[in-house]
């Protein structure tokens, strides 16, 4: 039998180990429940690992107040080991010390125990961080899934929305290749989206003019939108576009195209169109009705005109009392007003039906402007408005143009200028020329036109509030007729105006018209 090693054999071993070591006596209450323990011996590292100083001889409840509440399992396990003598090993967190410990405990004799422990806080923290990271990753994944579902829903909702729009919708990428075509578009064009997907809209869906000729690419609203010079193309007013339907017949459309921007870059365009066959038919019927009604109206008005003329000429009126003469003049004036209104209605309905016959011949437009200004002088003087003509070029060239209509256009602008200029005011008619174009401007110091009204100024029957106030008799047709004629000659008309200061109308006419005579406007 080997002799027990001396006591001081163990001491350096215990004091030099990394683990903490405590030799304790367990205390029980009367019901044999563990309630406390006394530290009998601790090694050097005990203090380092627990932070408890001079522990020997003290109860744990003195050293760590609250230990019973924070770690009841310690009492349970240590009690059990002290009683049964069976060693145990476990890991636990001691909140009052804010540390994790891995503890081995065994019983050297009944009611005593030895605890050997390591501080596992650092490794535990790593594990905990890992766990946290896992949880976070899981949460992100869950969020992503939710986001994905939301997006998918929103996407299908957008698609359903687009698909259900009653107008035709075609979307393209920045090269004009079709990326979307809604139900209405597929139905109107008689094309399935699958057939045209990723194909050029320019090639697969030709846009036609009234004669069935394809519109050149660079003039198509889609091209204009992709070029990015506009936010939305204006619907054309001068002529109608046509698309071809599945059966090969063409139908008239109203069409608008807008560029699609992402981060200020154009990534494509969206074209919206609708079939306007019905609107055009209604418009045609209306024009025909106006034309017919106007001709019928002209007969009684014309009869009245001549009878009034004869009455005046034959001295019946001149010898009548002043009141009768006044009344008579009112009758004649009224009759002329209705006649000119009917005339304008007829012009409009002919323009709308495309029946305007231009009878161009070589004419000097400078002389024509001069004549109009001379004819208008009495009207200007009557209104005490100064009417002046300035010809910046010695002579405007001859042009191939319908002289009567040109006269009508200039007369209309000058009459308007005088009409809407309060006395004392000025109307300046200026003719000029730049390369290839004759410029005629009519500038007044009149009531002016608001910016909103300027946009509608050249449409049929439009009259601004100001115009109605200062001249209740106008029909709102004059400028529409003017614009139709000027554009029919390949020219342009524009307006600049400041409310209360005056307006300037500018006509720009190409001098060498490529078309030959007799063209329909």
């Amino acid at each position, binding site marked *: 039998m080997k002799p027990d090693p001396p006591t001081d054999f163990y001491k350096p071993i215990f004091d030099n180990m990394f683990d903490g070591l405590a030799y304790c006596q367990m205390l029980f209450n009367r019901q044999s429940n563990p309630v406390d323990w006394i530290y009998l011996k601790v090694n050097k590292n005990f203090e380092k690992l627990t932070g408890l100083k001079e522990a020997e001889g003290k109860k744990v409840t003195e050293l760590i107040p609250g230990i019973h509440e924070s770690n009841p399992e310690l009492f349970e396990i240590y009690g059990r080991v002290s009683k049964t003598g069976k060693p145990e090993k476990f890991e636990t967190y001691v909140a009052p010390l804010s540390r994790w410990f891995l503890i081995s405990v065994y019983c050297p004799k009944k009611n005593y125990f030895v605890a050997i422990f390591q501080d596992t806080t650092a490794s535990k923290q790593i594990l905990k961080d890992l766990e946290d990271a896992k949880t976070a990753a899981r949460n992100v994944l869950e969020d992503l899934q939710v986001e994905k579902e939301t997006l998918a829903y929103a996407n299908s909702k957008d698609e359903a929305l687009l698909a259900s729009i009653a107008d035709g919708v075609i979307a393209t990428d920045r090269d004009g290749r079709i990326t979307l075509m809604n139900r209405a578009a597929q139905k109107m064009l008689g094309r399935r989206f699958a057939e045209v997907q990723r194909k050029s809209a320019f090639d697969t869906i030709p846009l036609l003019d009234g004669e069935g000729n394809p519109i050149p690419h660079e003039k198509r609203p889609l091209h204009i939108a992709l070029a990015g010079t506009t936010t939305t193309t204006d619907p054309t007013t001068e002529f109608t576009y046509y698309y071809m339907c599945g059966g090969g017949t063409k139908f008239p459309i109203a069409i608008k195209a807008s560029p699609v921007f992402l981060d200020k870059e154009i990534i494509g365009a969206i074209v919206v169109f609708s079939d306007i066959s019905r609107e055009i038919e209604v418009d045609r019927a209306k024009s025909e009705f106006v034309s017919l009604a106007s001709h019928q109206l002209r007969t009684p008005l014309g009869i009245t005109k*001549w*009878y009034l003329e004869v009455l005046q000429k034959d001295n019946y009126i001149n010898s009548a009392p002043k009141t009768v003469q006044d009344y008579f003049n009112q009758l004649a004036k009224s009759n002329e007003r209705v006649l000119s209104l009917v*005339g304008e209605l007829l012009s409009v309905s002919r323009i709308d039906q495309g029946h305007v016959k231009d009878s161009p011949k070589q004419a000097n437009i400078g002389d024509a402007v001069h004549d109009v200004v001379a004819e208008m002088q009495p009207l200007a003087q009557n209104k005490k408005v100064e009417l002046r003509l300035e010809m910046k070029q010695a002579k405007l060239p001859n042009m191939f143009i319908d002289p009567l209509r040109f006269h009508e256009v200039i007369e209309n602008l000058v009459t308007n200028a005088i009409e809407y200029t309060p006395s004392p005011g000025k109307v300046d008619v200026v003719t000029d020329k730049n390369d290839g174009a004759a410029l005629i401007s009519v500038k007044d110091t009149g009531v002016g036109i608001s910016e909103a009204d300027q946009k509608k100024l050249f449409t049929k029957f439009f009259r601004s509030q100001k115009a109605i106030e200062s001249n209740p008799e106008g029909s709102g047709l004059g400028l529409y007729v003017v614009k139709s004629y000027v554009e029919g000659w390949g020219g342009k008309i524009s307006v600049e105006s400041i409310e209360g200061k005056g307006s300037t109308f500018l006509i720009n006419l190409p001098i060498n018209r490529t078309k030959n005579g007799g063209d329909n406007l």
Partner: protein
Amino acid sequence: MKKILVVEDELAYLKLLHDQLTAKGYEVLEAKNGKAGLEMAKNEKPDLILLDIRMPIMDGMTMLGLLRQDENGKNTKVIMLTNLEPDDKIVGKVVKDQPMYYFVKSNTKLEDLTEKIHDVLSE
């Protein structure tokens, strides 16, 4: 005395033209449609015809076409007197059948018309 045939279905026009032209010393014949006008033109050989376009039974353009096929009628002076603005169809016929003037009644003063009649008949 110069003879003027007025072909016009509106009685008010007819009466006024009759009175005014008679007062200026012309002999005025009247017809109320193209068919009657053509008959009268052939029988009476007027110096000038004032011709409306829109009329019942036979319109003015048809009457003018038939008149130009007649040996006597092909050189008769004609002034179209109508309320129709000339459209493509009318312009085509006017070019072919050569009336001397084309007046839209409601755009024309009666005085200007009678002056023109005087000029045409003085040629």
